[in-house]
């Protein structure tokens, strides 16, 4: 399958040559269990810790603050499941634009007596003052994503963190501030140590690493308690034999994406700007807020998402229909609608997502194609 004209990197970013090579090398060099005490096991263990250190270096955090998981969904689950250790249910604050991996915990938490507050996100942005207003003494967890996966909105996690930390001073317990940061990793300035985030989830396959591996950042391990520590791997946070080759490949992909970061961001900002201009000229409406991640652009056409996506697909461009024109999707809440754009615009929204490998030519071709399609609107 050719990668040409692929604009769905936010769904998955195909493995880079580098991470494929890294995976293959690690899989053949470290065939043993990192928990084994023989030499092969010890070497595997060393390689695992080196990968962790590499990730920690790139993210400017301590290695022991990183837990390797099977992906962001598992990382998110660990944070939410950890609440079940609490003796008494309390309050959880999330936003209406969280990923389903977060929202899917609402029914369970409610059943267990938790009070789940969902904050609005007009124009895609969750306001720190809304978080502040929702904080109560019973609040145990605030979960606001760093970058929205549908519209690219970059949330002000620093400001949110600040209001939480301020409020927390009057409490005996700490409020965990968790931020699903899948779409931020390697794409948007993200400083875990300075942001005041307590925990964050990451996925390798969104940055060209392998599937089935991800990470949970935890400022202090005591904040999160695993439901199933099993064999005690990952500092007792995540049991099970480590997916070593994937972890090593992930660490290399991570290092690679942060290489010459500033230039990449500059280039991507220019591509995004060009896309916004070109698609506006072609008659599309821009849904992504100003200041959104340059990697994600959400737009609406006069056609239903699904139809427009299919038409682009027939012309060789892969994009994502922000919302399926289906009965199922109609029942759910649409992020574009939450932004305040109305049902119709939401049902005709598509997500265009790019990566550092996206070329100027691909962007120009996409714009030209949409302009040609205008007669069919």
């Amino acid at each position, binding site marked *: 399958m050719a990668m040409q004209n692929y604009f769905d990197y936010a769904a998955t970013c195909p493995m880079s040559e580098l991470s494929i090579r890294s995976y293959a090398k690690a899989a053949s060099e470290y065939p043993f269990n990192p928990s084994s005490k023989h030499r092969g096991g010890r070497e595997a263990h060393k390689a695992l810790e080196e990968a962790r250190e590499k990730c920690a270096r790139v993210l400017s955090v301590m290695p022991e603050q990183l837990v390797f998981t099977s992906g962001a969904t598992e990382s998110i689950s660990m944070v939410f499941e950890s609440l079940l250790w609490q003796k008494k249910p309390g309050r959880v604050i999330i936003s209406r634009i969280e990923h389903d991996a977060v929202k899917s915990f609402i029914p369970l938490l409610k059943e267990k007596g938790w009070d789940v507050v969902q904050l609005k996100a007009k124009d895609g942005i969750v306001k720190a003052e809304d978080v502040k207003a929702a904080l109560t003494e019973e609040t145990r967890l605030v979960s606001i994503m760093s970058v929205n996966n549908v519209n690219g909105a970059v949330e002000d996690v620093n400001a949110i963190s600040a209001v939480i930390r301020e409020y927390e001073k009057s409490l005996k317990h700490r409020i965990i501030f968790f931020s699903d940061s899948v779409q931020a990793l390697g794409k948007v300035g993200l400083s875990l140590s300075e942001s005041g985030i307590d925990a964050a989830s990451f996925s390798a396959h969104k940055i060209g690493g392998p599937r089935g591996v991800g990470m949970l950042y935890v400022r202090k391990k005591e904040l999160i308690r695993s439901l199933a520590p099993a064999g005690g791997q990952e500092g007792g946070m995540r049991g099970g034999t480590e997916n070593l080759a994937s972890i090593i490949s992930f660490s290399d992909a991570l290092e690679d994406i942060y290489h010459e970061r500033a230039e990449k961001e500059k280039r991507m900002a220019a591509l995004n700007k060009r896309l916004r201009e070109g698609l506006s000229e072609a008659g599309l409406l821009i849904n992504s807020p100003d200041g959104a991640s340059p990697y994600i652009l959400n737009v609406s056409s006069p056609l239903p998402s699904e*139809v427009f996506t299919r038409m682009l697909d027939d012309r060789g461009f892969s994009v994502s229909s922000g919302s399926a024109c289906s*009965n199922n999707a109609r029942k759910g809440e649409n992020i574009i609608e939450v932004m305040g754009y109305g049902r119709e615009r939401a049902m005709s929204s598509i997500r265009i997502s790019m990566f550092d490998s996206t070329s100027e030519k691909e962007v120009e071709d996409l714009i030209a194609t949409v302009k040609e399609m205008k007669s069919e609107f």
Partner: protein
Amino acid sequence: MNSKLYLIKEGEISLKGGNRNLFEKRLRHNIKDKLSGWNANIEKQKGRLYLFLDEDADDETVEKALSTTFGITGFARAYRCEKNVDAIVSMAEEVLRKNPFGDKGTFKIEARREDKSFPLSSYELSVLLAKTVHELFPALEVDLKRPDYTLHVEVRKDVYLYTDDKKGPGGLPVQTAGRGMLLLSGGIDSPVAAIRAAKRGMKIDSIYFHAYPYTSDEALEKVKKLASLIAPYLGGTRLYVVPFTDAQLRIKKLSLEEETTLMFRASMMRTAEKIAKERKALAIVTGEALSQVASQTLEAMSFTDSMTDTLVIRPLVGMDKEEIISTAKEIGTYETSILPYEDCCVIFSPKHPVTHPDKEESRKHYLSLEMDEEIDKAIANTEVFYFNPLGKEESLKR
């Protein structure tokens, strides 16, 4: 040597007069069509068909085939023996060993003596076999009204025994009442309409209007799946996939917005009529139920009917949605019908559709759209699929 035997009860056919033979012949043909792989051979005796199959015939497949063949009211895996008392008793023991009754509950012997020369009466035969049952299952008691288990014995040219009789779908054999063209959408209703019409003997082919890219290929796959699911009831069905995008776009462009659905329906009728004529079909069958949606009012239906000379049959006209859903579940199409691939894109659905159109006005509007060329083009590009009586897709026999 054929050795697996099924006894088949035919219902309404046995009440037919002079043309009964035609119905029976068709029923035998329809059954054989599904089971030819096992050398199906059918013998007929008063009110019963005896289906002989190779010993390796798969019970589940046979049961599926018979329970979807209209004209059959009931059937059972049966065992044949000679017409003497000892043979009957020993066969009864064998049947009960193969299909044991439970350890608790009640039973009954249902004896039927067609051959009055047999020395035992039905009652005497029942008593004799009740003893056999009692010996094998001493805890069971007799209950003639609502038994948990029944051993049937029929004395005819030979003697037949069976325990587990199953209900057939009833109705009349398909292809005894001419051919109809079904407008098959991806929804819940039209497959049910097909089954209703086929139940009275109609042979049915299906038409689906595909509007890619406004409807997805998944929607087409869903319709093909539905066609394969109803095919066993229909004794096989052709599926005509009519590419209708250009026709729909033309209507969207030229028609009054509130009338678009009506105009679609009219153009679909016209298309179906042309295909029907080519197939020598005498009716168009739709899944419409009165007042279910805007295009299913009496006014809307009189308008769409007026656009075709072909008889339009709406088997679901008086059914509630709940009743339709319950039949869809019975025939196994419901789960597929509710898959979320829409058969009409929202851009073609007016926000405020006309519900009580003026027939003559709407006719004029339709004619002014000059759809004939688009329809002919759509028919010329139609793709035809065939699903055989077992529901398998097959290349079309021309």
